[in-house]
């Protein structure tokens, strides 16, 4: 089984968020970057587990500049067999998806895995785009995955429950919590990762469809509103109109 796993680089979850260049770019000064947790903990690890069970290989792909090599090497240290980096900035979801799909078309993969979303842009669009370009089924928010011959038995999270479905043949899968357990690379893996192939390929140039105009920080949280216990109408109005929970 040959699997392609798409990985992204994101700021560490505890990073301070600030912007530069008139609030049009993320200020990465002093920021620690990590592999997107949904890509690493769930998509990558489950792909490696499947290959360990049935043979084959795991290729990781990242769309981004050379500074992303650090997270690609980590993926190789965890257990991926080889890696590809498409040497371009990830300008928007479409740019990323188009480049991943273009690479996937040049090889034969049994399926493509990625995390359910990145923790920076929270887009959750790339998987569906890749699936559409490649005309493959897309199963999102997968929290359990088993393989039986040529059939993937998939459990996906939906609002209010889970959906169980069978997918026959290749698919694109977005991984959610529960699909696998995080692996910490050991010293042998880290040493082996240095000699595993990491190919850098030229991008397919596409016109961006969505421009980032500006980032803004949300307004600070306001204080707690205390409502007189005799004024239930006001409480109901605030819960309905401001909190929008009823």
């Amino acid at each position: 089984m040959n699997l392609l796993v798409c990985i992204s680089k994101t700021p560490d979850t505890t990073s301070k968020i600030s912007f530069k260049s008139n609030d049009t770019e993320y200020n990465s000064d002093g920021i620690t970057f990590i592999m997107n947790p949904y890509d690493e903990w769930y998509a990558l690890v489950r792909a490696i587990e499947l290959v360990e069970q049935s043979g084959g290989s795991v290729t990781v792909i990242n769309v981004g500049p050379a500074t992303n090599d650090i997270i690609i090497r980590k993926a190789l240290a965890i257990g991926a067999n080889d890696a590809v980096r498409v040497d371009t900035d990830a300008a928007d979801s479409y740019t990323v998806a188009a480049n991943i799909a273009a690479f996937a078309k040049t090889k034969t993969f049994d399926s493509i895995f990625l995390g359910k979303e990145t923790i920076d842009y929270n887009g959750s669009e790339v998987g569906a785009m890749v699936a559409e370009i490649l005309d493959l089924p897309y199963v999102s928010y997968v929290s359990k995955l088993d393989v039986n011959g040529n059939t993937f038995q998939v459990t996906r999270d939906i609002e209010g429950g889970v959906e169980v479905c069978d997918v026959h043949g290749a698919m694109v899968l977005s991984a959610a919590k529960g699909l696998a357990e995080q692996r910490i690379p050991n010293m042998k893996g880290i040493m082996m990762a240095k000699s595993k192939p990491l190919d850098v390929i030229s991008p397919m140039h596409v016109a961006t469809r969505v421009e980032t105009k500006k980032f803004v920080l949300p307004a600070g949280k306001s204080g707690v509103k205390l409502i007189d216990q005799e004024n239930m109408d006001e409480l109901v109005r605030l819960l309905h109109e401001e909190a929008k929970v009823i």
Partner: protein
Amino acid sequence: MSVLVYIESPKGHIKKTGYEVASYAVQVAKTLGTDAIALFIGAANDAGSAGKYGVNKVLHANASENQEFDAQVYSKMIADIAKENGANIIILANTANGKALTGRLAIKMEAGSVSGTNSLPDVSNGFVITKSVYSGKAIVQYNITTQNKVLSVMGKYSSATNSSRKHYSSIIDNQYSSDKSESCRTKNI
């Protein structure tokens, strides 16, 4: 040009988020001076109730083969129906299924797309909408530059607003069906 909103109706039930997204679509259509069209696929009890929220037309594709969600099948239907009805803006709920459709529709319609938007578009200089990023620690303003646009909308943003319109009685039913077999077959929910 019009706005097409796909309203989810799992097991035939229209949830609150369905009406919220319908209300959002109506507001977008008003902003652009055009009509909002609601679309249901599969079973939908009381699809005409979308009219109470201001949509101008309700389409209900209720053929027997459309009953189970399949993003490949549904996205093709939505894109085809959008084309037939002159809709260049597609609006979806920011649910698991909505997000699965957003990316597919963006490719099919050569559209710019944003998932999880939490604002009405500012059309004074482009088509600018906002969404939360960095796990809610920041807000980004995006300008969608393509003619076709696909948005999934955060449910909490848009409250379901009843309009003065009454229950919509003119439903175009059973006009559309899928022409592709399902590749992801649901066994249980």
